[in-house]
């Protein structure tokens, strides 16, 4: 034993900058020479709805009885121009996710769950499948840059049309579906050879900019005889200007997706470093609508990291008309379920962290085109779980709204909120809790 053995030593310390995950990514990049691709949304901690709190009613405002007094939840989307707006019983919709990225049972389950709760589901890159049309009482048909599977017959079958400019996980990027998931059926729907890496364009092929978009919207309206609501979806980056231009172009509904929103596959660096959190995007979008005199006339749907009824209520209080869920809906179906822990471990991951959705080996049978894995997902049971979850989101949002004295979720307002952090106060435009201070703004209660 040496003289040094009794000297206390500091514990090994990892660098906050070069943390173990960062080091592992450097090693992976050095070994392969290619960026990391994965599914899902950003995994970093961001200012989010958790940084906001509601001010329950007290002396200055009175609440509604939790189990006796009505608190409405319905919303009508597409009231601006469409002859047939769609009426949802809950303001929680299912975001666009493609057959191809998802299995057929997963798409069916999304349709079943959404329909049971009176809300809509949405197609994705690759077109509309008979299964999802058949199981979705309200189906939004996405119109994407790739136009894979784009078909006027399906356009006429849709209840609404969503022109996708971008998504929160990768604003400015196109779709990606790697060869492992391009099965015979997916290839046929997209008019592509089987097994190739499908990299969709990031811009639409036949229009550029808002002036063209206005003409494109006019074409879609003419083709569908002005029946269908037309949504425009953007990834959150410059929400005030993007929403202004989408509305100027004639959108009935604008969909704003924050960087927490998931994707089937893209570069990790894109997911983590491009776009802004949904918390920071809602108020500028609402301001754009208000400046145009169209708030509540052009409906705003927001998405990206919605997990519970509090998130729903906070999004609506900040001015959204509805929200959309994607990742949370997949979890409700069974994504990343601990019952498949051994399978996740075999793939080098763990339940809750699995994000290699692009590889098509999802043990839960959701993000795969492998028929053997499909059989693990019962679309009826999974649809029931989704319906249950949608019901909980709605009940939770109602609980909060009643506590704030609101007879409809849409009566929630920014004045019902405070922020826990200076950052959230500035982003959401609500006071820091216990103060009348909204960073960057003047005025008080």
């Amino acid at each position: 034993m040496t003289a040094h053995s009794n000297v206390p030593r500091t514990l090994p310390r990892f660098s906050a900058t070069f943390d173990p995950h960062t080091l592992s990514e450097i090693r992976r990049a050095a070994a392969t020479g290619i960026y990391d691709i994965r599914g899902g949304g950003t995994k970093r901690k961001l200012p989010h709805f958790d940084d906001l709190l509601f001010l329950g009613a007290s002396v200055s405002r009175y609440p509604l009885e939790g189990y006796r007094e009505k608190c409405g939840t319905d919303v009508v989307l597409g009231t601006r121009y469409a002859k047939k707006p769609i009426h949802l019983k809950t303001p929680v919709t299912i975001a666009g996710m493609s057959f191809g990225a998802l299995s057929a049972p997963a798409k069916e389950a999304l349709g079943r769950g959404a329909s049971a709760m009176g809300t809509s589901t949405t197609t994705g890159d690759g077109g509309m499948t008979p299964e999802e049309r058949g199981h979705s009482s309200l189906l939004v048909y996405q119109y994407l840059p790739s136009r894979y599977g784009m078909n006027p017959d399906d356009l006429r079958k849709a209840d609404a049309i969503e022109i996708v400019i971008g998504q929160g996980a990768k604003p400015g990027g196109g779709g990606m579906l790697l060869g492992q998931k391009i099965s015979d059926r997916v290839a046929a729907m997209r008019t592509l050879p089987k097994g190739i890496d499908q990299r969709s364009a990031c811009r639409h092929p036949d229009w550029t900019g808002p002036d063209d978009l206005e003409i494109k919207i006019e074409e879609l309206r003419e083709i569908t005889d002005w029946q269908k609501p037309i949504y425009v979806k953007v990834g959150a980056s410059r929400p005030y200007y993007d929403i202004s231009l989408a509305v100027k172009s004639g959108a009935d509904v604008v969909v704003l997706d924050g960087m927490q929103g998931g994707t089937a596959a893209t570069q990790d660096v894109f997911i983590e470093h491009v776009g802004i959190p949904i918390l920071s995007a809602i108020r500028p979008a609402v301001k754009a609508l208000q400046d145009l005199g169209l708030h509540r006339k052009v409906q705003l749907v927001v998405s990206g990291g919605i997990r519970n009824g509090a998130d729903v209520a906070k999004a609506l209080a900040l001015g959204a008309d509805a929200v959309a869920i994607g990742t949370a809906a997949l979890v409700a179906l069974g994504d990343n379920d601990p019952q498949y822990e051994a399978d996740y471990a075999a793939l080098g991951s763990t339940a809750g962290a699995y994000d290699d959705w692009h590889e098509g080996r999802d043990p839960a049978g959701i993000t795969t085109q492998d028929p053997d894995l499909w059989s693990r997902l019962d679309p009826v049971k999974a649809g029931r779980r989704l319906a249950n979850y949608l019901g909980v989101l709605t009940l939770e949002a109602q609980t909060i709204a009643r506590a704030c004295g609101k007879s409809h979720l849409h009566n929630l307002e920014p004045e019902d909120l405070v922020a826990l952090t200076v950052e959230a106060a500035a982003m959401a435009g609500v006071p820091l809790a216990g103060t009348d201070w909204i960073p960057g703004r003047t005025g008080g209660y």
Partner: protein
Amino acid sequence: MNAFTPDVTFDLAEAPLRELNAALHAATGDSNARRWRVLNPNGRHALAAGVDAPLTIEVEGHVGYYCAGMNQHAHIIVHGNAGVGVAENMMSGFVHVRGDASQAAGATAHGGLLLIDGNASARCGISMKGVDIIVKGSVGHMSAFMGQAGSLIVFGEAGEALGDSLYEAKLFVRGAVKSLGADCVEKEMRDAHKALIAEKLAAAGISGVDIGDFKRYGSARRLYNFHIDNVDAY
């Protein structure tokens, strides 16, 4: 005005476009309203978009964006120039532009035949998915970008980056090609390809063309699956 005898004449100077398109959508081709003449188009957008019936529609003048968009079954003749995206996403039928066409002619179209007597601008046949496009003049840059299926036959020349990121669309150009896009290469012109051109020209009612003058271009298929060694191609 040509010798065409219409069953219905619709004057856009007298009635709105929405009324015309609604009438065309209501027409099934089973009644006696099969032959339509449209007067005074004056560059209107989305003219005859979304038609889904075996009608013949003759448009007497220039049209704006997306004329004949998503056409199914109809035979649409434009006696003038066409704006951006003529016959975009066409599924079937025949669209004939007597003059020139702007950008993105036949974009993403899945089927049918698009014949352009004059020139077509940039991105002709972008993301084409099965349509046949014949251009008697020349096409602009980035034509057939990401073309997936179908054929593009150009009597004149092609601009820069022809067939960039091409999938399985077949490209035939008689004149000079300024440059080829990523993964697009000249390929051997075999008898089957000459027969294919002859078939498409015959379908368009074109004869007397020396098919031997065309060169064939297609995908090298090197970029079908991403490989780091090909990164410079992007």
